[in-house]
């Protein structure tokens, strides 16, 4: 048995055989061919074999699943006949005396990259089709049988370098028990997806992942971030028992679903869910969320070719509010720009996207866009417990201007005779250090703060959270962060306002005791983290953690703090 470690991205234990996603992407070497007409003939033969194969796949799919499911293969056949693809490949073989494999790879890559760069989800989906078809062609050229993602027929653990959004969209949840990736962090797309799909996952396990052979039995212990490859029968038996106990514990957590959240000494807090699309609401309810602490509205704007209308937005907000009513729903206004692009808006390229015209900065500049969203929110307000939240505020003027626009739209709607909710709370994200340090200036002007730790850590440490070389600076438990958080909470309390947190940190089992001690009121996290958090908080004494948390503020580094927290949780008497 080989043991590898990685980042526990989504809890649980999974045991199944490895399914290697990476092996599908073969990168050929460029070679020069002496006889290009033979090479073209070889290529055409591969095209013909692929056509026959896809055609039979199309027929069998049509018989088994119906014409609509088979349509995708019609698309694949069209790709094989596409003049721009085929002619370009043959031209490369003929004029550049390139080998067919490399000509295919290079040409396909051009189209794949073009499509992948598009903002439309449907079009990005087509890139996967090209990969699929060209992978098949490549297999024929190389004389190696083609592996089909769709042909998955047994329980498996996906092993990949990384899972792209399109990979995760394709995962067949009937068979996929878990996944392991070579790169990535707790906040990478694949990790977030794993948590929302509730499948155990370990990310960032390093290049050792490449050593895992196809069909080997793999144990993913995503509670600990450990994976075991090829265990012995005894070891396997032990892990099966462990998995059973773990599954049982998860089921036991189900009992906490309908209950409110209290610490051991009776302090009540609220556990809410972060959601990114309407389908997530059901998952939040199923996991015992006491509200939605962060409703990202970007999904309304992405994967389409023009801005969503007020009516479209209204329908979505109304749905969410009605579904959660009377529980609160904190809806964050558009957080676009920077790395999240909308091609149809033709935003200018920025040299430093994370420090540019993002989110509210953009909304204040393009007021019509913002006003449309505010109107839709206001109109939906009477269908539930709406709280509006503005992202990326650095200075007070931004908050005041946003509130002013909201007030103007409110007055307009009232003048039009539109019925609005009785009291709509208005709050802001605290994710820029400037706002955290000056929280006392903002507190009188808001109903609540919600600390966005992913960005707050990134901006406080000046470290891009997607850059693995500086990943060590992503330290949620660093005294600098904890001090900022405490200051924000104290500033809010002075004004009688509440503070939530909607970053990854709010669902972290080491961070929760400290946050509870610091006086956080609302914890918003991935739905799957809610019940374990409720169980944990029930075992914690808030008053005691208040002084523990104060102690940590003067510690020297993250490691000292996490060790201190874990020792107390384990019942070890650390301080005399």
């Amino acid at each position, binding site marked *: 048995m080989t043991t590898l470690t990685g980042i526990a991205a989504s809890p649980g234990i999974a045991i199944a055989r490895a399914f290697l996603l990476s092996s599908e992407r073969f990168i050929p070497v460029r070679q020069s061919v002496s006889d290009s007409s033979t090479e073209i003939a070889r290529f055409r033969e591969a095209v013909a074999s692929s056509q026959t194969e896809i055609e039979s796949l199309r027929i069998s799919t049509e018989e088994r699943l119906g014409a609509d499911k088979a349509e995708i293969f019609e698309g694949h056949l*069209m790709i094989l006949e*596409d003049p721009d693809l085929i002619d370009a490949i043959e031209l490369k073989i003929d004029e550049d005396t390139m080998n067919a494999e490399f000509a295919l790879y290079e040409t396909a890559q051009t189209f794949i990259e073009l499509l992948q760069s598009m903002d*439309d989800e*449907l079009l990005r989906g087509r890139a996967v089709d090209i990969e699929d078809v060209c992978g098949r062609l490549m297999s024929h050229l190389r004389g190696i049988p083609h592996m089909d993602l769709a042909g998955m027929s047994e329980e498996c653990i996906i092993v990949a370098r990384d899972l792209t959004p399109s990979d995760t969209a394709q995962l067949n949840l009937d068979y996929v028990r878990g996944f392991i990736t070579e790169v990535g962090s707790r906040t990478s797309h694949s990790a977030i997806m794993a948590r929302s799909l509730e499948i155990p996952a370990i990310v960032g396990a390093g290049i050792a992942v490449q050593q895992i052979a196809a069909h080997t039995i793999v144990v993913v212990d995503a509670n600990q971030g450990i994976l075991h490859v090829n265990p012995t029968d005894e070891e396997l038996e032990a892990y099966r028992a462990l998995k059973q106990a773990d599954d049982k514990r998860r089921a036991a957590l189900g009992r906490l679903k309908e209950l409110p959240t209290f610490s051991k000494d009776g302090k009540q807090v609220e556990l809410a869910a972060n959601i990114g699309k309407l389908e997530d609401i059901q998952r939040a309810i199923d996991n015992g969320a006491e509200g939605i602490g962060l409703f990202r509205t970007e999904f309304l704007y992405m994967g389409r070719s023009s801005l969503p209308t007020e009516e479209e937005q209204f329908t979505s907000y109304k749905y969410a509010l009605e579904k959660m009513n009377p529980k609160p729903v904190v809806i964050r206004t558009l957080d676009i720009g920077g790395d999240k692009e909308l091609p149809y808006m033709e935003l200018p390229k920025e040299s430093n996207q994370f420090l540019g015209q993002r989110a509210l900065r953009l909304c204040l500049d393009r007021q019509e866009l913002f006003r449309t969203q505010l109107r839709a929110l206001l109109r939906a307000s009477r269908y539930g417990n709406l709280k509006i939240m503005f992202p990326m505020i650095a200075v007070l003027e931004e908050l005041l201007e946003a509130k002013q626009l909201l007030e103007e739209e409110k007055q307009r709607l009232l003048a039009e005779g539109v019925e609005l909710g009785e009291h709509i709370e208005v709050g802001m994200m605290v994710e820029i250090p400037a706002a955290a340090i000056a929280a006392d200036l903002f507190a009188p002007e808001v109903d609540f703060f919600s600390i966005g730790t992913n960005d707050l850590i990134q901006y406080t440490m000046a470290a891009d959270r997607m850059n693995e070389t500086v990943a060590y600076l992503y330290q949620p438990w660093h005294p600098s962060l904890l001090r900022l958080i405490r200051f924000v909470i104290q500033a809010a309390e002075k004004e009688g306002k509440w503070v939530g947190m909607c970053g990854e940190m709010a669902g972290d089992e080491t961070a929760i005791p400290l946050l509870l001690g610091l006086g956080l009121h609302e914890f918003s996290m991935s739905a799957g983290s809610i019940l374990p958090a409720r169980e944990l908080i029930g075992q914690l004494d808030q008053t005691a953690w208040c002084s523990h948390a104060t102690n940590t503020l003067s510690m020297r580094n993250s490691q000292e703090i996490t060790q201190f927290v874990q020792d107390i949780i384990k019942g070890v008497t650390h301080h005399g």
Partner: protein
Amino acid sequence: MVSKTFTILNPTGFHVRPSKTFVQTATTFPCKVNVINKGKKVNGKSSLSMLTLGIAVNEEVTLEIDGEQEEQALETLGKLLTAIHE
């Protein structure tokens, strides 16, 4: 050569399905079919190239058709561009 500009009315733009029909129809004509959108010109007989245009609703698309049966192709393909699909 004949050429004409059309406006896309299909609410979801001119994506996978409409584009497939367009390419299949274009392929039945012997003439050369070029499609121009947002300053980019592609071969109207290539579904991949058509997709990379990412044609959206309300956008203008120009057809440039050259060769045998060009008038007929312009009429047929123009209708497909302005039709409501799905």
